[in-house]
């Protein structure tokens, strides 16, 4: 049940299923997109890079949201799948000089295939066992990247990545990459919103709530679980490819278990079960990490007795506390809080 302003009624199914119903909502979306598009011009390339980081994480975390928030399949190795996408993209770009437009989906597919293995395992193994089994993906990824032949994935040295080439343009500047990543991220998020509203999205939610009951209702639980993993890891692979073109170097140490844990933390803070919630989580956590890193040198200069390392190590403490606080005070995440605020504003001045 979505809350809509009074007087807004649907007269066709299409209208009813639409995400954006009123003129004002279109305006709000337009303003948001314009603001996002203007960030590099108004604020400069440093903010463009923060934006780049957020766009890439948004794609990966949206995939995780589909797997975990919608389908309830715990995936503690999203960073490993992102790494699979990144290394595939780097390898293809280096060996066969394929264009960006081909590499992006190819990287996604490679990650999805790797994810399919775990999707199939999810059919037999449930609950915490599944969650912990996904950690195995991290170890397998790390081992595979370091020990496969250097001509495939760079072995211990990692791979350099040439700049992305699209429509004759070479995307090597931070601002150019911002727009490229922004467009891809927007497309992937829109697609995710579509999945969430489709019969697959509803099947995901049914399997999350009770997979036995879902099976009895006629949903092919095996197929849905496998699909949940594949879609989530496809997104991770695409995000990984974008990452490869952004950093222009891929190495196994960029995709560790700790990175996967941060992604789960983003979902926790933003709210599980909602795509927009995942985006909130990305913005909050990535934003806070940047804030601390920017303020760090100033703080370190103000208090040299503390030493730079205490200032920066405190970031872990701060963010950990933040996440724990969220779970205790607002377990449904920022999204829930946002819905409550919107609702109370809509029915103001009535209390309920």
């Amino acid at each position: 049940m979505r809350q809509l302003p009074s007087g807004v009624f649907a007269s066709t199914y299409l209208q009813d299923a639409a995400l954006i119903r009123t003129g004002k909502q279109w305006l709000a979306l337009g303003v948001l997109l314009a603001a996002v598009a203007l960030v590099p011009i108004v604020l400069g390339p440093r903010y463009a890079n923060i934006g780049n980081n957020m766009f890439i994480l948004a794609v990966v975390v949206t995939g995780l949201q589909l797997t975990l928030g919608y389908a309830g399949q715990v995936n503690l190795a999203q960073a490993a799948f992102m790494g699979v996408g990144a290394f595939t993209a780097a390898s293809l770009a280096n060996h066969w000089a394929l264009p960006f437009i081909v590499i992006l989906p190819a990287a996604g597919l490679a990650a999805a295939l790797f994810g399919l293995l775990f999707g199939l395992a999810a059919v037999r193994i449930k609950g915490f066992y599944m969650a912990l089994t996904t950690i195995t993906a991290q170890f397998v990824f790390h081992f595979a990247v370091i020990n496969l032949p250097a001509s495939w994935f760079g072995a211990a040295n990692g791979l350099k990545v040439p700049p992305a080439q699209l429509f004759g343009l070479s995307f090597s500047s931070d601002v150019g990459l911002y727009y490229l990543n922004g467009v891809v991220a927007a497309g992937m998020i829109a697609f995710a919103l579509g999945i969430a509203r489709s019969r697959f999205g509803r099947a995901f939610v049914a399997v999350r709530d009770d997979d036995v009951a879902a099976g009895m209702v006629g949903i092919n639980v095996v197929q849905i679980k496998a699909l949940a993993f594949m879609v989530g890891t496809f997104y991770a692979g695409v995000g990984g490819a974008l990452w490869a073109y952004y950093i222009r170097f891929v190495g196994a140490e960029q995709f560790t278990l700790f990175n996967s844990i941060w992604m789960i933390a983003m979902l926790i803070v933003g709210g599980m079960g909602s795509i927009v919630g995942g985006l909130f989580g990305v913005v909050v956590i990535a934003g806070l990490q940047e804030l601390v890193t920017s303020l760090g040198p100033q703080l370190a200069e103000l208090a040299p007795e503390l030493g730079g390392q205490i200032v920066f190590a405190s970031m872990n403490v701060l963010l950990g506390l933040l996440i724990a606080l969220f779970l205790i005070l607002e377990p449904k995440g920022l999204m829930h809080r946002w819905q409550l605020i919107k609702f109370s504003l809509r029915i103001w001045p009535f209390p309920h």
Partner: protein
Amino acid sequence: MPKISRRKALSAAAGLGAMALPLRAMAATAAYNIAGLADYSGPFADIMKPVIAGRDAIIKWWSTEVGAGLGVALQAKNYDTRYDAAQSASLWPGIRSELNPICSLGVGSVDATALADRYAEAKVVSIQSGATATNSWVPDSWVLYYRATYAHETAPFFGWIYEKEGRKTPIKVAVISSEAAPAFVDMAKGIQAVAAQLGQIQVVELIWDAVQPVDLTSQVRRIVSAGAEYIVIQTNTAAVVAAKRALQALNAKIPIVTTSHNGMLASGKAVGGVAQMEGDFEVHSMVMPTDDAPQKKLYDLLKSKYGLNQPWGVLAAQGMSQGALAVRGIEAAVRKFGPADLSGDKIRTAMLSTPLEGRDGMLPTVTFDRSAPFPTSGLTANVATIKGGAYTVAARDLPVPNLKKW
């Protein structure tokens, strides 16, 4: 016309002349920024403080004592990269716009690889702080190192043993490393390359374990039965401690060969006493931080006048050497192109074309060429050991061989 007394005229002229002098000096000193990248909260945070302090002090020293005379002033500012590629890439545009640096002081393979293309684009030369990692070993690099790879530095030790003992057969060597970090894998492969290319050593055992091994007794047992004469451990001090305990348990006396970041003093502290490292070796290209080292005078100067309040040791020496190469490059560029309009491009050109000697004494006179990011001639290695419970230098200035990339 009133007669202007000669005295008044002379003093007026002197006054005007004196006012003009500082104007000339001010116009002559060009100020440049250096971007310092550090790791304050990531995996190498424990060694960052002395390194950063060392390089900042050298820059201040050079800027005050040498640069002022040449008309150049240097200012360094440090940023935390958390040893993370994304953080480094994200910080870079901000660093560029805020500082417009001519030179960057890198923290390690993370910024060397992630920012390599960006340095080339921005024409900023980067001087790194540790040994070269193989993934940075490319021709025409904008990222330069004052040390070659760990393997380059370890080879002279075995060459020295080979000569000293008059050997005819290869020395049997075991390596303990870890796959947890790609850099550690590279170190092990480097030793294997040294064995293959120089023929003075033979790797009889290669042990892979965790970064903090639980117990190495059975692995070391394997090493002992393979007849290894030296164990090379260049990953970290935890591995050295575990290996040392295993050797003590097996009552075996095989010397451990370490490098700068897990050297005798650091490992000695971790194992609970430097005396336990008796007979082990530490080999690298940097200054040996003994009290009678000629570089100690520079350290004392930096400590007293330029704010270097970290102890004299390998890490401070590492930072000082990094700063030393950077200021030598800047000095070479100033001599070649003049103090005005310095850029990373000019510094790099100067570094790649002239032998770099400096009054710091931290490094020998080194020469770069376009084929590698480290000096291809002039590098030497030093060996330290613990003898009688004290840190002593065993060998100095062993020439570093030329190796082919593996």
